[in-house]
């Protein structure tokens, strides 16, 4: 057996897995999406049909908001946790990254416990203002849930990036007269740009496709994964749900590609 043949043999399992679990189902999905009563035009319906379009915009906005807020919260927290040593630090990090282990259902359940009809916030607000604040089943509840499971993913990436920052750069900027704010703006944030893109992409993609939380909370929220689910199971509308699935994948990929090329300059600059 030649060296080359051996290498090809080694690649065989990868090829099989890729074919069986990725290429074939994807191809089938694309075909099914075009097999509805409207044919190929079924894909256009994702954008043309007002209900689908509204859901799509909702989902993208929700994912974008989640990503931005996650980045802000995780950057501040990550930078603090990486730069300071204090008692209980490792416990705090463990707590912050704990939600990584939770499935979406549990996250949804926790949001209900917090802001649901019997939730903590409702109880307190009822006693203080005489009015029960309940937002678990709205888009705000969903946003909170997404935030909850996005932050741990982003915080770890940011902490690793902060650890690699050259402290000398910050000291140099300070010696030149830069205030703490100017140091952050001119030195630290540009250097963290690659980490923002990488971890932001993960947060965005996760928020676009998250289902468990939406399913647990969803009484009156329309997000794309929920729409696909209802079209598929309740309406048995295979073609539309397939088209929506392909659309969800494409749009997520497109936005991530845009973000990457848009920040390309910043990433290269910080490299």
């Amino acid at each position, binding site marked *: 057996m030649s060296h080359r043949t051996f290498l090809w043999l080694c690649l065989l399992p990868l090829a099989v897995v890729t074919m069986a679990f990725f290429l074939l189902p994807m191809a089938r999905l694309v075909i099914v999406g075009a097999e509805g009563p409207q044919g190929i035009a079924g894909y256009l319906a994702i954008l043309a049909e007002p209900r689908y379009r509204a859901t799509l915009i909702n989902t993208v906005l929700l994912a974008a908001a989640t990503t931005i807020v996650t980045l802000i919260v995780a950057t501040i927290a990550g930078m603090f946790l990486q730069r300071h040593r204090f008692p209980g630090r490792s416990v705090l990090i463990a707590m912050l990254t704990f939600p990584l282990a939770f499935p979406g259902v549990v996250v949804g359940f926790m949001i209900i416990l917090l802001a649901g009809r019997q939730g903590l916030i409702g109880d307190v607000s009822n006693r203080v203002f005489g009015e029960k604040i309940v937002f678990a089943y709205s888009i705000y509840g969903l946003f909170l849930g997404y935030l909850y499971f996005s932050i741990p993913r982003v915080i770890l990436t940011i902490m690793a990036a902060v650890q690699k920052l050259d402290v*000398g750069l910050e000291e140099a900027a300070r*010696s030149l007269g830069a205030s703490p704010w100017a140091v952050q703006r*001119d*030195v630290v944030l*540009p250097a963290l740009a690659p980490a923002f893109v990488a971890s932001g992409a993960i947060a965005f993609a996760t928020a676009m496709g998250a289902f468990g939380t939406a399913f647990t909370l969803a009484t009156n929220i329309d997000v794309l994964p929920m729409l696909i689910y209802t079209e598929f199971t309740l309406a048995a509308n295979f073609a539309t749900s397939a088209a929506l699935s392909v659309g969800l994948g494409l749009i997520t990929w497109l936005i991530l590609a845009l973000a990457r090329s848009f920040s390309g300059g910043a990433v290269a*600059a910080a*490299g």
Partner: protein
Amino acid sequence: MSAVGHGAAVRIKACGKTFADGTRALDPATLDIARGETLVLLGPSGCGKTTMLRIIAGLELPDAGGKVLFDGKDMTSVPIERRNVGMVFQSYALFPNMTVADNIGYGLKIRGVPKAERAACVAELVALTNITGLENRRIEQLSGGQRQRVALARAVAIRPGILLLDEPLTALDAALRDRLRGELNRLLRALGITTIYVTHDQAEAMELGDRIVVMRKGAIAQIGTPREVYFTPQNRFVAEFIGAANIIEAPLQNGSLVMPGGQLRIGDDVTMPATIAMIRPETIQVVDAGQGSLSGLVDSVSFTGDRQRLVVSGASSRPLNVDASNAIRVKAGDRVGLSIAPEAVRLLPLES
């Protein structure tokens, strides 16, 4: 040159540094640096020289009781961004997200200097540091030597009262280091800024320093001009750290050191019961066998062109290094006489 003569006088009063984990990096030290002077902090790694520099810069706070004064003004609690110090780091710490010109102009931009004035100042510094043509390059496109110049130009651009350099040449290869050392020397003289220069390289310290502070294990071992620390070291550490030195342990009798190869006369007025003496290799004269105060056997000869380094055994308890003229014909195995002037012998206190 507009950046000339902005020096401040620095006074460090009883500045020590103990880190949070209890390590003592610097014993309380007091030091005066004159306006416009170039002071070199010299010592092996871990001797506290960088800690001292960082205390002056404002990057470290001295232990309680320590004070840092610029022109008599107490700066101890003033943060680095308001001390107006120019700093060059060993890693250069150039901003990778900015061009060369933006790096040099950053301090001026922070100070709100208008764009046109800033550009003029940057152009002046670019010319002064010999990096014309690189203004729009990114930092990763520069060589080590070019980065060093940009770092220096950036530090000088803000017209600092004090210029602080932390091993600025260490990251460069030997040939470039020698060339930049000369260039740096001319530049520092031209600028006339008070400069504090940290290095572990004694050749750099000798060439650049008006005065040298030799440091060891967190304490100052000696302060003096390059000539003083070279010719009249106050202890064995300084003698051995600066230049090459023969350290001789021999009893002193009637004004002479009694050594295996003979008696070395150093004068009657010596009262020290000294047993350690230092003799620089170039102060030892090689003479014919039988002449001179000492005699010994040549172990080896290394010819380096401008001179030759002999190792002579038998004269002292340990083999002596001798720098001889390149004109002398001598080979390993020869018996030679050594002549040493009394004033070339420096007696040092015995150390525990």
